């Protein structure tokens, strides 16, 4: 990930340099203050007569220096931000681009939630890490080192105080961090549990009320609440020791510096002004140490996040393009063939979802697929557009192995509408136009009409331009499914796959949809996964899948005669 810095190397160098400017000014201040007190006010070298002009003179010089420091500080901020935010942005864009190119087994492995966190939170953490490195860390380190150097140049004996207190502070900080960090994990866990109880009660309010469980739930919530409050209190109480101990250590060292200084002043080795400066330096040094621990926390978080982002960046798509662009051959259009296909989800071991599956779907054929939930229906159709690759055997589209095609050529031949209709937060028109970005209004309306979606779209005030809320929440399940179907139809592909996309439609609408589809697109190969026998009853053939195997395949009439499972399903739905 360091290579992303290359573009911003200038900023990366300038930010610490300007910081050096700011810190030097900060470090000069106590010394100048000392001069003002010693020479200007006390007039030590002038036999106890103050020198007002020196005060004013040095004071103005000091203000100039501080102003210069301020400019340096601001410039350092400018460059640090230019560097870190642009760096973060580049990584963010690359990471997102990479995610958009991943194969499903990879997105499954990462899980959606984790991918989202990686592109959002983790990047912010890395950004913070970088800006801490070029600014915070540099500043703190310079203040620390510079503070020690300045203090020792005042008088070496002040070093004794530093040597004594520093290890104590470091030990103390380490102790508290080690002690509290594991508690935060517990705390998060307790918080999750409490939120879970609330979530259950809000979404399950009917059940809670139906079984008159209000008091029971209150008790359950009370327990989760007590746990959370207890843990939180433990953390806070532990931390309430930390601040005072640190403060006392700091204050004791201030006293020690004065005492040591007094001895040296008594011996004539140093001046009261120097003692005052030393007091300032010691608190600067110790503050730097404490700030350093915070920076280390940011760094360790940032490094962990960086590792997580790197995992994404280093992930090469496992499903890659073939070479065949699909343009040359025109003889067969819309043929799908499964040759002894077996499939197990990557990472799920040998547990096969599909086993030795053989089936050829002819161009223009309508194939229904029936089977219990979890029998492998969706997994099967996922193999056609290469959402996943078969573990064994071959999947062929138009007589070519799907792995030979370029992905865009292959997916261009196929239109899929999913059961969990993925609708995006834009207008309905845009959502449908995903199928074919060049489509005009007429084509979009036509597709929507075929999908039986016009009926509800036209009832909306803004028609096709109606905005869909995020997650499609402003549409009902059936409406979302119809928009997804319209999108698939608009694509006008050779192969149309409905993965249980009509489950939320009432039977009449569903029947009309299929009728119209058959009439308008007779040459398209249609693969329809369904739960209801009525949805697929009139398909050319119906494949019945059980436990990942093809249990039976044939027309409705044939299956009624030959397949026990099919009859079973039929009876369960028709109750004859």
């Amino acid at each position, binding site marked *: 990930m360091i290579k992303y810095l290359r573009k911003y190397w200038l900023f990366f160098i300038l930010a610490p340099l300007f910081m050096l400017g700011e810190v030097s000014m900060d470090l000069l201040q106590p010394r100048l203050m000392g001069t003002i007190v010693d020479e200007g006010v006390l007039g030590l070298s002038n036999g106890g007569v103050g020198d007002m002009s020196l005060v004013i003179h040095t004071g103005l010089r000091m203000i100039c220096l501080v102003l210069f420091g301020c400019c340096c500080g601001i410039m350092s901020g400018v460059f640090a931000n230019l560097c870190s935010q642009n760096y973060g942005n580049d990584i963010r864009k690359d990471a997102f681009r990479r995610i958009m190119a991943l194969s499903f087994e990879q997105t499954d492995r990462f899980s959606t939630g984790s991918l989202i966190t990686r592109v959002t939170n983790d990047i912010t953490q890395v950004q913070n890490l970088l800006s801490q490195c070029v600014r915070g860390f540099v500043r703190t380190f310079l203040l620390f080192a510079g503070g020690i150097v300045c203090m020792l140049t005042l008088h070496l004996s002040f070093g004794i105080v530093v040597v004594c207190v520093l290890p104590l502070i470091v030990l103390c900080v380490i102790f508290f961090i080690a002690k509290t960090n594991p508690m935060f994990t517990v705390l998060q866990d307790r918080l999750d549990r409490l939120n879970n109880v609330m979530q259950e009660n809000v*979404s399950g309010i009917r059940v809670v009320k139906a079984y008159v469980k209000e008091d029971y739930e209150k008790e359950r919530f009370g327990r989760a609440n007590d746990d959370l409050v207890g843990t939180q209190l433990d*953390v*806070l109480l532990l931390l309430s020791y930390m601040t005072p101990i640190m403060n006392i250590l700091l204050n004791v060292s201030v006293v020690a510096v004065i005492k040591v200084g007094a001895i040296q002043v008594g011996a004539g080795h140093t001046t009261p002004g120097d003692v005052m400066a030393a007091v300032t330096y010691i608190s600067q040094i110790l503050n730097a140490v404490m700030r350093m621990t915070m920076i280390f926390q940011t760094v360790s978080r940032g490094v962990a996040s960086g590792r997580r982002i790197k995992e994404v960046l280093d992930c090469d798509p496992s499903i890659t393009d073939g070479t065949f662009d699909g343009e040359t051959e025109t003889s067969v259009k819309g043929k799908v063939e499964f040759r002894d296909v077996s499939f197990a989800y990557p990472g799920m071991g040998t547990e096969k979802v599909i086993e030795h599956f053989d089936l050829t779907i002819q161009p223009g054929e309508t194939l229904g697929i029936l089977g219990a939930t979890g029998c492998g229906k969706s997994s099967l159709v996922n193999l056609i557009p290469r959402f996943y690759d078969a573990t064994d055997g071959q999947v062929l589209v138009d007589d070519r192995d799907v792995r030979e095609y370029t992905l865009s050529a292959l997916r261009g031949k196929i239109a899929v509408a999913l059961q969990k209709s993925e609708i995006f937060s834009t207008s309905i028109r845009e959502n449908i136009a995903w199928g074919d970005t060049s489509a005009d209004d007429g084509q979009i309306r036509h597709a929507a009409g075929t999908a039986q979606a016009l009926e509800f779209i036209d009832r909306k005030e803004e028609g096709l331009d109606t905005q869909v809320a995020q997650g499609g929440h402003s549409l009902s399940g059936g409406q979302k499914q119809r928009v997804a179907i319209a999108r698939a139809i608009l694509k006008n592909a050779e192969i149309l796959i409905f993965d249980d996309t009509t489950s939320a439609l009432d039977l009449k609408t569903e029947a009309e949809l299929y009728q119209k589809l058959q009439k308008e697109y007779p040459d398209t190969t249609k693969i329809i996964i369904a739960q209801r026998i009525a949805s697929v009853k009139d398909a050319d053939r119906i494949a019945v899948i059980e436990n990942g195997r093809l249990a039976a395949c044939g027309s409705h009439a044939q299956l009624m005669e030959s397949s026990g499972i099919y009859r079973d399903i039929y009876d369960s739905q028709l109750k004859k």
Partner: protein
Amino acid sequence: MAEDREQSMSKYKVPGMRGPRNRQVEKPKDMQKTLGRLVKYFAHERMTVLFLSAVVFVVVAASVYAPRLQSEAIDRVSGREFDRLTPILLFMLAVYGVHGVGTFLQSRESAVLSQRVVKKMREDLFDCVVNLPVKYIDGHSHGDIMSRMTNDVENISNTVSQSLSSLFSGILTVLGTVAMMLYLCPPLALLSCTTVILTIAATKFLSKAMRAFYRRRQELLGELNGTVEEMVGGYKTVVAYERQEAVVEEFDRTADELTRSGIIAEILGGSMGPVMNVINNVGFVIIAAFGGYFAVNGMISIGVISAFIVYAKQFGRPIDELAQIYGQIQTAIAGAERVFAIMDQTREDKSGSRDMEGAQGVITFQNVNFSYIPGQQVLHDFCLEVRAGHKIALVGATGSGKTTVVNLLMRFYDADSGEISIDGVDIKDIDCRILRQNTAIVLQDTVLFADTVRNNLKYSNEQASDEDMIRAAVMSNCHDMVMRLKDGYDTMLSGEGYNLSQGQRQLLAIARAFLAQPKILILDEATSSVDTRTEKKIQDAMVKLMENRTSLIIAHRLSTIQDADYIVVMDQGRIIEAGNHEELLSQKGRYYELYMTQFSGNTI
């Protein structure tokens, strides 16, 4: 200087500690009223509050007094009175000790106080939420309700535990410091105040400049996160339609814009520190110059100057901080307002006192009218009588009012007019708890809790013995399934029961209804998302469950309801047909139509 150190310590990321600076500030609508109600929560903790105030007072006093001692010590050093130095140093240590102990007590007490208040507030809020009418929950986004219960309460908690005592000590420090400075040297004190004016002006100017950029950044961040969530969540569709490039381009646009406003916002935010530094140093020079002048003229001692230098720093900080705290308090109060808004909702009307002992389960709807939104009537003059022990089915398109019937019967909602009665008693007169205890309901979205299978089943009847529970499970065909789980009945279901299939969840919900031993049973689309063969299993279970009980079934699939005693076909809130399966078929009306599309199927 003591303040300086505390400041750096409070930057540790601790839950319950202050959030990042420059966060969006929300403005409450009626600050005074909400504040008054918040104060009531502290009334119970009067002693703690008093003690805390006393402690804060001591801490502030110590931190104001310490620099004075420091300056005296320096005076002794410069006056070469070394023999008189040690007692002062010892005294200083003592004051620092008091300060340390005080800080400890302060953070300890404010932790205890805030956690107690928050605990009470959460409990109160939860009590309100479970007793809210279903109408409220249905009518508000669950995300919004959740966010009030989590974020807003958390925000209040943070403010209470941190900002309040900072506010208090901040104000005290400023007052104490000013008093001390005035006592030491009034003219110099007034001169030091110029820094305050500069500080306030700078803070105001910078935060005003920042606000717009921070807001823009926040918006863009939300937009960006939204895009990522949507596109990664809908990844299959993105890939299936080859939209990756377009999506990435959109993302890049937002990301670039976010970076631009982020850079400006952070630069402005980051310049606060250096600017404050300049102001502080200007203050220092003013003090040194004028102090030196006064000292030369013998008006003050050198030690006073050194004390002033510390004091000037000490009161510059809290002023910068107070501005920040004020914003946090405003945000917290706006949150409190939302929390109280829920607490102010009228609770569910649970009046009614009559028992249902010995009830038969005759349900009567008489001329019931109902609308969720005024003007959009859902049920029109609805009349229906269900005889005891009968199995009655409601069919009809989505939105025809089937579920509304259930909502009214369970008193999740109350009818606008007309009467619903059980065995002739208006359900409004029946004790709501008893009504619900005698009516079991199985819903389309199975609600299971993150608890053991046992507790989930016994949810409907805590008194049930294990034998009862197993009997119910056997009857609902889920005993074998449960026994196959890792820990049998003690298996923990994950949140919302996601480690079970939809069908298994449904079976458990039915077993739960079984165990309730209800007089009336309601099944609302209980099997719609299960494949039909699993459904058959469930149905067999339900047949047993419905024996000798008045049951009300709502279903999409007609196969589910064919053997009902009485089928009611609804359309737009009215009953359009009623009768048993054969009668309705022979009428060749809407039911026949539905039946034909469903069973004979149409051409694909």
